[in-house]
């Protein structure tokens, strides 16, 4: 971060603040208050090319020139504002979530100076910029959720179709199905494609199961001990 350049027509474009913050700053001109542009950018730019008395100062990722006395170290923690009658420094939060800041500009000999709402505490917050910050936080969250939903969709595409054509797997369903499917694929790799038949026909595993339901012709049941009273058969070797 460089030193402030002398005021004038040059645009100073040092980046100061954390990204993705939108700020609106009120510009107070003599007898005129105008709202400066609200910028939804990832940078904040302050341009004080102000030879013109109708200049509007926009806040744009630029350290305010002259008339400022500030210290900055990464991450920027504070800005001190010089100049008479200008309220005390705004505090730049260290984390992305702290957005209480607003530089006030006292232009020396300039026809405009900028002022944001100031609280008596050292944390200066502009209502407009906080709302805009929240809006961009919402945007970020929305983008994050959209990416996650896309990732869910890609996962669903790789899973076998297990729902009627119009329906999608829900998130929890797709997670569980993915778990099951991966286990299945790993088991095939390890035990060969007949692993299911081998696993599920071992008599010790299946002797307590009721027989599978046959629709239609039922082969003769040898040694079948299952009866309607619900006793468990001692062996099911005849199942196939």
């Amino acid at each position, binding site marked *: 971060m460089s030193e402030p350049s002398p005021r004038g027509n040059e645009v100073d474009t040092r980046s100061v603040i954390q990204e993705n913050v939108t700020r609106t700053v009120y510009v107070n001109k003599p007898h005129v208050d105008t709202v400066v542009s609200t910028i939804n950018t990832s940078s904040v730019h302050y341009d004080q090319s102000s030879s013109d008395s109708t200049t509007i100062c926009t806040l744009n990722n630029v350290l305010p020139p002259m008339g400022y006395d500030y210290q900055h170290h990464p991450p920027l923690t504070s800005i001190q504002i010089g100049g008479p009658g200008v309220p005390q420094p705004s505090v730049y939060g260290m984390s992305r979530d702290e957005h209480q800041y607003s530089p006030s500009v006292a232009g020396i000999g300039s026809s405009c100076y900028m002022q944001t709402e100031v609280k008596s505490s050292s944390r200066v917050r502009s209502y407009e910029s906080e709302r805009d910050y929240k809006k961009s936080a919402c945007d970020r969250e929305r983008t*994050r959720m959209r*990416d*996650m939903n896309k*990732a*869910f969709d*890609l*996962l669903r595409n*790789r*899973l076998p179709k297990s729902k009627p054509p119009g329906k999608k797997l829900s*998130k*929890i369903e797709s*997670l*569980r199905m*993915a*778990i099951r*499917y*991966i*286990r299945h*694929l*790993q088991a*095939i*790799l390890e035990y060969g494609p007949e692993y299911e038949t081998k696993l599920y026909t071992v008599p010790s595993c299946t002797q307590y199961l009721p027989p599978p339901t046959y629709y239609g012709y039922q082969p003769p049941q040898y040694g079948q001990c299952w009866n309607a009273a619900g006793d468990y058969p001692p062996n099911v070797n005849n199942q196939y």
Partner: protein
Amino acid sequence: MEFDNGSNDFQIQSNQLNDAPLKKRIRSGANARERDRTQSVNSAFDVLRAMIPIDPPDRKLSKIETLQLATKYISHLSQILNSGEDSEQAHSFYDVCIFCLTNKMNS
């Protein structure tokens, strides 16, 4: 006017008095259900995370990472199964398959 406002206020207040504990109960029930639902989703994420071979093995993947890697892992396993278990070398032409790498590193 003042009198009307007063009686309105009283009416509103008494309704609110009746509704307030009920609404709170409804909200706290809904909160508990949502908490349980979120917990079940998160534990499913944890199980899925544990199945994906990753190097180093204790790196905790974020949710979006587990989804993307699970997708890639399923593709990887399917491709191995389709093309035969020993042909991992001809796996993909354009990128290195990280699961093949992880496998080689661990074996």
